[in-house]
């Protein structure tokens, strides 16, 4: 058995290295952020052609079973892609669409929807995102206020979803709602009558969408999941989203630290590189420790998450991860500005873009404080 495990992990290691290499190649030797700079603040937010290339590389299907055209891999692989892309601040909605919406659809009960849409999603032809949140800071997705009233052949949806990441070019929203006092998930095309999308800017040049549904009619065939299954699919999607967002936070922290250490090696004051001052050496080391700590939790949790025995332990793991990675990335990027001096406070200097990305990733899908809380609540329930 140990032999089988060993050969499996060797195979994992090999394909993961290949995957990491292809991400590095995709982002122009790992950290070309020219594209991110060009796209920030634009209404398209990201590049649909880049999204299709990501599809060709198979990344959009990492979490999709091979029976539906995906690669049937797991979170560790998705983490490799997310971390690598985040180093280059790639603006494509990997977490929002290829993780969260995909997980919600794949976890739903409608085989027809899966058969029809998962392959299109893997191919980058349809870009769905999850519209679950209604109030700021609300992490509990189980009881949405958005109402789905049954009618002949379907439902009539009324309510508002906010803070939808990846909404800019999404063509479908997976909308959570309350139908007959029980949770449900709907597949709502963007051009459905009664659906209005507004976009608001974010610190990192991307946007949050606000989706307003006013008596929007959705047919019964477009119900992704109902009841317990809907709640489970949604909870899993949020946990996976938080986990892969944590991989992005790691990539952001890692790259920001590299940039800062390079700066410490080259910037000269008082006749020597500022990296020769012990005060700054110690800061560099402290940030390095944060980054390593976050990376260690990331590897462990991404490996364990897919095999968590139950929803509570899965959620506890995701929370532990998101708390650490948010704190680490915020600290690394904030202090990186300090290490740069005034130039770090300019728009031209890349380091600021890393801070802004860290801010958004840390504020989205639950802050460190919220996740620490949830972790304790869940793990004490489990008697751990």
């Amino acid at each position: 058995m140990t032999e089988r495990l060993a050969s499996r992990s060797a195979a994992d290691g090999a394909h993961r290295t290949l995957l990491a290499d292809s991400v590095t190649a995709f982002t122009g030797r790992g950290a070309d952020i020219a594209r991110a700079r060009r796209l920030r603040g634009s209404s398209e937010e990201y590049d649909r052609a880049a999204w299709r290339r990501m599809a060709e590389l198979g990344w959009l299907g990492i979490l999709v079973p091979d029976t539906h055209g995906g690669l049937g891999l797991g979170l560790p692989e998705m983490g490799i892609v997310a971390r690598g892309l985040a180093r280059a601040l790639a603006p494509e909605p990997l977490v929002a669409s290829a993780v969260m919406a995909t997980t919600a659809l794949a976890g739903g009960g409608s085989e027809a929807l899966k058969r029809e849409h998962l392959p299109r999603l893997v191919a980058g032809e349809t870009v769905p995102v999850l519209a679950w949140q209604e109030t700021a800071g609300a992490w509990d997705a189980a009881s949405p206020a958005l109402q789905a009233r049954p009618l002949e052949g379907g439902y009539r949806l009324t309510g508002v979803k906010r803070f939808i990441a990846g909404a800019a070019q999404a063509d479908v929203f997976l909308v959570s709602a309350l139908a007959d006092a029980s949770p449900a998930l709907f597949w709502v095309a963007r051009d459905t009558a009664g659906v209005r999308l507004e976009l608001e800017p974010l610190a990192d040049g991307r946007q949050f969408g606000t989706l307003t549904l006013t008596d929007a009619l959705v047919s019964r065939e477009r119900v992704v999941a109902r009841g317990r299954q809907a709640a489970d699919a949604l909870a899993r999607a949020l946990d996976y989203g938080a986990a892969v967002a944590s991989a992005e936070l790691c990539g952001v922290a890692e790259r920001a630290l590299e940039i800062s250490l390079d700066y410490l090696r080259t910037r000269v004051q008082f006749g020597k590189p500022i990296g020769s001052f012990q005060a700054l050496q110690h800061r560099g080391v402290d940030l390095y420790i944060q980054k390593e700590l976050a990376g260690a939790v990331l590897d462990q949790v991404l490996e364990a998450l897919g095999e968590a025995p139950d929803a509570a332990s899965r959620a506890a793991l995701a929370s532990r991860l998101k708390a650490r990675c948010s704190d680490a990335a915020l600290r690394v990027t904030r202090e990186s500005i300090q290490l740069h001096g005034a130039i770090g406070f300019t728009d031209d200097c890349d380091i600021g873009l890393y801070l802004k990305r860290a801010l958004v990733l840390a504020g989205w899908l639950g802050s460190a404080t919220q996740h620490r809380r949830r972790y304790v609540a869940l793990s004490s329930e489990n008697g751990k």
Partner: protein
Amino acid sequence: MTDWNAMSDEDFRREAREFFESEYPPALRYILRRARWHEMKEWWRKLYEKGWIAPNWPREWGGMGLEAGKMVALLEEMERHGVARAPDQGITQVGPIIMQFGTEEQKRRYLPGTLSGEFIWCQGYSEPNAGSDLASLQTSAIRVDDEFVINGQKIWTSLADDATHIYLLARTDRQVKKQAGISFFIVNLQTPGITIRPIRNLAGHEEFCQVFFDEVRVPLSALVGQLNEGWNIAKALLSFERLNIGSPRRPQYALHRLEAVARARGLFADPGFVDRYAAVKLDLEDLAALYGGFVEQAKRGEALGPEISMLKIWAMETWQRVTDLLVEVGEEQGVMPGVQDVAGVKADFLNAFYYARPATIYGGSSEIQRNILAKYVLRLPG
């Protein structure tokens, strides 16, 4: 001219409160970024007409000549009402320098206009390769007949594009130790050969600038104090600048927002939040105690020693802790630019956060302040 010191402290405080409440532009209350000149012009005029532009200046030059207790009352009332500082480097920096080191002619020429807002000043110290190591600055001023010719480049010059004049340090002697060859100049920004180029900052605003000097000819009267005395002149101001920066005002405004947002979000019912809130609130109140001690010392006319560095460190780092928490309680809205509405409470989370970032960089970075404390206060070897 009114002698404000003749009023009782209570009357003066009431006067200040009523003045701010009735005259200060409501849209500029508790702003968490730097106010621009065009926004503050009107308010400047009102202060000027009341004779309140320069609380620290002596009355003979149009200041209030305010005594310690009333100065504190004035600052407290400003804080209470959320009054922002106008671009006031002329009042806090150049004015005192000219009074102390300038000629009679320089005083007559510059002080009244500085008070009225006719002259707006910016500070040209830093250069691309002279930041923390300011003394290594390379901009040169060479005497040619009865002019100085200035060449070089300044950077990070805040609000240079709003200013009419710059005060700057330039090298006037290359043969001596680097600190000993620097002089202090005041230059009209309209002088031919000066180019100003704004730099976009992290918050997306164009506030600090590059200022280029290409064969800029200024009269001998542009020199303030003696030739090669510039370093001492600039240093004389540093401790006052640190006192000014160390005022609890900025973190106070951020805390004010934090309280409002926390109330709107119902966070005071949450013991976890209350503890974190209490920690920053006390950091701030205790900062006020530390600050008060230094203010008293300054008002007694005592020189402020290197200990003042700790005030700057604590004030700026407290400010950052408050804004870190502010962004966090903003949740998703905390990472959305512009004024956000949290259950009716308005807050600009990101500007608050962004503007607290460089506070540990300018005016002597926190690392440099710690070096100073280690060396001159703790007297550690090195």
